[in-house]
């Protein structure tokens, strides 16, 4: 296999028998990252189901796993597996875009183990000891950063995350600096650097609750509605270049438009979290106006994915990857765009703030945008890392089943939580004799049961997804 043959083929060197090899051997460091991502994804869902049951059988697994513990595990695993996915994507995509080997594959593998061990230890800590004990053991007093939603990790874990991120960014930046610079790789790097920079605000935890909340959103909102969108756009663009064969210039133009709209709407759109936390009232106007435009970049991603696939110049044998890319375009728009818009205007948010409506949106948005974009990338890259352009038909069929099961289950989870949320608002926040929180929860238990049932279907989807990796029979 000569290297110029490889260079000619957009998807890696390919032999007539369906075997293919990576353009750059160091791209294979992405493999452990992707495997870890999938493993943690599975665990995330298990803990989701535990919580789903606790919603209706309140004392389920109490006191072994109180709800707050299950929730930390669920949400932190989500963030960590997405980070594994982004890192794997970075290690895979940046060498290929830069047309050179990764600066240091050894460092990438070393970083992988650090991150995995730190992540696992943290989760074990959540489960093994009371949270207050964990805080004490890890010296939270020295620099208190724990006990805030999504940022529950002990301070030393946070420092570890920063170290891992720096090593990763250093490795990729050195690769790019010495190689070809493309729009896709630059947008990807901007997103990843932004991710690391905004995470630094997790170390800022003032006593003043309003200040705390104000800057907490600089991590959370500026991640999911800012820099992560850049990462998502770059990953989607990369896969679309590969599987459709459409001209890079066309794809890059889309990418630029998308990220411009993201930044124009998303940054000041942070204001939709500043309505009721003790910030000045002008945020109600600014936050509503700008965040109401945030669906635009997500809608553009939908159009982007469908347009590129319609204009495709080749039939890529990896049908599953194309399906994930299209699905991601649609579900991100539904979850972030439509479900986000639904409660983003201040007068509506006044009623829905902090209810099951929020949870419904959080689920579909995280799944549709970030879970799916990582799964898209894995679907495209894993076969190549394993030495073939696409998986066997049998394997792809199972993977596509898992796509539909997970995606449809998530649509139903979202719908049931939305129903629960609307009822909750109606019973607890409207009318002259509002019900208490706990009484309201009892009233909507029916929808929590349905959500749990949909959750089981989601889990079956995840299991099929994992199974698809073990079906390798070549069918040529």
């Amino acid at each position, binding site marked *: 296999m000569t290297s110029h043959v490889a260079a000619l083929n957009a998807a890696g060197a390919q032999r007539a028998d369906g075997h293919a090899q990576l353009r750059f051997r160091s791209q294979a460091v992405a493999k452990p990252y992707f495997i870890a991502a999938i493993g943690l994804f599975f665990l995330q869902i298990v803990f989701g189901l535990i919580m789903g049951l606790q919603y209706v059988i309140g004392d389920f697994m*109490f006191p072994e796993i109180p709800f707050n513990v299950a929730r930390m595990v669920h949400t932190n695993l989500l963030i960590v597996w997405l980070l594994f996915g982004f890192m794997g994507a970075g290690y895979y995509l940046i060498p290929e875009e830069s047309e050179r080997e990764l600066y240091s594959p050894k460092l990438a593998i070393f970083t992988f183990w650090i991150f995995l061990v730190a992540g696992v230890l943290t989760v074990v800590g959540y489960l093994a000891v009371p949270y207050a004990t964990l805080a004490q053991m890890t010296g939270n007093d020295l620099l208190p950063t724990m006990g805030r*939603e999504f940022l529950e990790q002990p301070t030393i874990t946070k420092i570890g995350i920063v170290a891992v991120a720096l090593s990763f960014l250093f490795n990729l930046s050195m690769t790019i600096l010495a190689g070809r610079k493309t729009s896709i790789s630059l947008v990807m790097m901007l997103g990843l650097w932004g991710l690391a920079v905004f995470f630094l605000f997790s170390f800022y935890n003032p006593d003043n609750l309003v200040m705390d909340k104000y800057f907490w959103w600089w991590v959370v909102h500026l991640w999911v509605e800012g820099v992560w969108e850049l990462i998502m756009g770059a990953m989607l663009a990369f896969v679309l270049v590969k599987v459709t064969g459409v001209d890079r210039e066309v794809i890059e133009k889309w990418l630029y438009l998308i990220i411009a709209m993201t930044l124009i709407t998303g940054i000041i759109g942070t204001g939709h979290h500043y309505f009721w936390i003790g910030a000045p009232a002008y945020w109600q106007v600014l936050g509503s106006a700008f965040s109401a435009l945030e669906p635009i970049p997500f809608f553009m991603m939908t159009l982007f994915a469908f347009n590129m696939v319609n204009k495709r110049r080749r039939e890529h044998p990896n049908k599953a990857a194309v399906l994930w890319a299209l699905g991601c375009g649609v579900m991100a728009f539904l979850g972030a765009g439509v479900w986000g818009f639904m409660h983003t205007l201040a007068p509506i948010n006044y009623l829905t703030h902090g209810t099951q409506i929020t949870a419904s949106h959080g689920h579909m948005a995280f799944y549709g945008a970030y879970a799916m974009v990582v799964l898209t990338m894995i679907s495209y890259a894993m076969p190549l890392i394993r030495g073939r352009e696409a998986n066997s038909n049998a394997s792809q069929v199972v993977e596509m089943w898992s796509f539909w099961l997970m995606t449809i289950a998530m649509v139903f989870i979202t719908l049931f939580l939305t129903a629960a949320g609307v009822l909750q608002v109606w019973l607890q926040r409207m009318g002259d004799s509002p019900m208490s929180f706990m009484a309201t929860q009892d009233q909507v238990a029916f929808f929590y049961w349905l959500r749990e049932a949909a959750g089981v279907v989601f889990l079956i989807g995840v299991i099929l997804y994992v199974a698809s990796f073990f079906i390798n029979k070549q069918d040529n």
Partner: protein
Amino acid sequence: MFFFLLFLALSYDTVQAIPKQSPKAVMTEQVALGKRVWEVNNCIGCHTLLGEGAYFAPELGNVYQRRGPEFIKAWIQAQPTNAPGRRQMPQFHLSQEELDAVVAFLKYSSEINTNNWPPNIEG
């Protein structure tokens, strides 16, 4: 870039305005301790505070008005209820000082000017 700078300017203005917005919410050492107790017991893992957090248990930004200081302390000490099938809150083994501090923190939280949120006392 322009929008980022505008955001920074607005944030600067907000940081200046936050103390003026809530003149009644006074920071003391006890409140700061209470916030730490709130954090290291991960209360946000079940409850919302000013509408942010988890949606498993009641909003606590206004619990000081809804229940009062004595009820809050007695409640925390009485957990878990162990009522079969009911959602359970863990026992945190707080000292008297920590209990008072949490209550001070919740009182402080309830005095933040939230532009009239939540819509009613049930949160």
